[in-house]
């Protein structure tokens, strides 16, 4: 079955951060409660659009991520809907306690936008590549965690985050790079509802973030060799779409998770926990394998960390073999 909101060709690449900003500016024009806060990041013209359009609701607090998050909670307490922007690693690492205490614990209406998440951007090296955000944030009660796959779903995720009355984490990839657009603009996006991009009966790939595109590539390759692979875009890491995942487990019996994050505790961890309890099936996790990233170009680091299509395919073949052995 063809998915109506999937682009026929994946020949366009767009910047997710730019798409997020487009939505944020549009939201701010119609809603005086929207405030955009920055921790001296990201640089460049994209964020400046907001500052020019809404100078009264733009707040840059400098290199002070803890203060960024707590002061945004103060704005939320004053009735505003602040979106904070900073490097993912520092939003997580320098402000974990602030996200937990000032945002989640009091269910403040703060939207924490973590930029440059994952390793696939090379750029500034492992010190700046956050891989543990999904694992660490997933453990905090009350948070909604979104990891959009492309510019179209990112724009929709921003609108959905603004509308959701509570704390949201929005995980973005490299702010300086364009990533393959997979969706058409008529995408129906709903927090907590995984998107089935491809039906399939032999195995399911559950992917989040920019690697959804590679998951599609692998599924198309596999189809040519007669293997039918379902693809779920699990854009909401929390709350997890348990129904869709359990259905995939029951119907396909073999799961591969794919994320630009550590395999420990992120999407892979969440799927393994869920299926182990409710529907044990074979699971393989593609992600960063308990190591730090590396310096290099995005493509080099992606290969170095084993996140490219051949590795996804390898995991898929492994899990299919395991399933076949059990069936015998």
């Amino acid at each position: 079955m063809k998915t109506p909101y999937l682009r026929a060709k994946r020949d366009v690449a767009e910047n997710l951060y730019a798409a997020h900003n487009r939505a944020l500016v549009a939201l701010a024009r119609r809603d005086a409660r929207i405030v955009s806060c920055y921790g001296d990041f990201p640089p460049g013209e994209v964020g400046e659009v907001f500052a020019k359009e809404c100078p009264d609701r733009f707040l840059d607090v400098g290199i002070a991520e803890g203060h960024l998050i707590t002061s945004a909670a103060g704005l939320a307490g004053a009735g505003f809907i602040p979106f904070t922007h900073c490097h993912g690693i520092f939003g997580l690492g320098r402000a974990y306690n602030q996200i937990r205490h000032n945002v989640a614990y009091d269910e403040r209406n703060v939207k924490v936008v973590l930029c440059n998440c994952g390793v696939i951007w090379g750029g500034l090296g492992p010190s700046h590549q956050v891989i543990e955000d999904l694992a660490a944030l997933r453990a905090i009660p009350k948070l909604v965690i979104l990891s959009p796959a492309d510019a179209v779903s990112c724009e929709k995720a921003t609108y959905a985050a603004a509308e959701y009355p509570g704390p949201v984490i929005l995980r973005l990839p490299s702010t300086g790079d364009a990533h393959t657009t997979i969706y058409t603009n008529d995408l129906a996006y709903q927090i907590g509802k995984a998107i089935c991009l491809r039906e399939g009966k032999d195995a399911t790939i559950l992917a989040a973030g920019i690697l959804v595109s590679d998951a599609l590539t692998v599924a198309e390759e596999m189809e040519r060799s007669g293997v039918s692979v379902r693809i779920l875009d699990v854009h909401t890491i929390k709350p997890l779409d348990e129904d869709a995942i359990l259905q995939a487990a029951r119907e396909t019996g073999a799961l591969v998770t794919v994320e630009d994050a550590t395999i420990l505790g992120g999407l892979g961890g969440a799927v393994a926990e869920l299926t182990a309890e409710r529907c044990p099936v074979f699971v393989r996790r593609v992600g960063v394998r308990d190591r730090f990233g590396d310096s290099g170009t995005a493509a080099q680091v992606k290969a170095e960390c084993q996140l490219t299509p051949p590795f996804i395919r390898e995991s898929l073949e492994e899990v299919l073999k395991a399933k076949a052995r059990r069936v015998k």
Partner: protein
Amino acid sequence: MANEALVKELEARAKKLRRESLLVMKEMGAGWLGGSLSEADVVTALLFYRMRHDPTKPGWPERDRLIISKGHSCEIVYAAVAEAGYIPKEELKTYSHPRARLQTHVNIKTPGIDYSGGSLGLGLSFAVGSAAGAYMHATDANLAAPSRRHPAKYRVYCVVGDGESNEGQVWEAAASASHHRLDNLTAILDHNRFQSTGATSKKLDMLSFVDKFRSFGWEVREIDGNDMRAIVEALDWAVTVQDKPQAIIAHTIKGKGIPAYENTNCHFMKITDEVLRIGQEALKD
């Protein structure tokens, strides 16, 4: 000059709240006696004199905000919001019980309380966001612009501990408040000279808080933070300051009001029947 009758009335109220805070502590069998009693006069002056608020409308958007950053010293605050009428006095007996609104650190579940404490060094940042929000009107100019077209919708008062000022984020917030010219923000530093495990000067000597806040661009006053007249006058001064946040360095006495514990490290102590008796005796009218 603050009028005599007002000062006397506030002093009597503070004494009453000190007594009631001991009963709150007794609910848990332990309490932050030192810090609750040191800040009692400041909290009383804020809620019963200076702050614009209405206990019948706890969510009023234009209310002045009270941010207790040293959130452990909650017993006096709970006693005060009950006295003001935000919660029934009876509810003080639920303090620290499971599912109670009165959690063991100030908590926004309790009407009249705008900030949940517990993680130290964060309240001043929250106060900065809150104060910035008071200047954000739909059509206002940039916070950093030379002139503002609107007055702040409300003021924010933040009680900061001297011990928690070891945390670096207090100073991120101090820089931010002054950079954004938040003159609707007053920090009151409860300088009682003791923190969890000993004297502040022995743990980490922060030297002069006056010099620190001043160098961050704040207007600063130093007062005896257990002298009601001085507190009232300092709070009256704070609202006259324009373009700069104000810090009131309140020199206080840990455990103020119970001579047996004053200036000792009574930060967190078991509240036995004997402690309660000594306290009530010292604080009787």
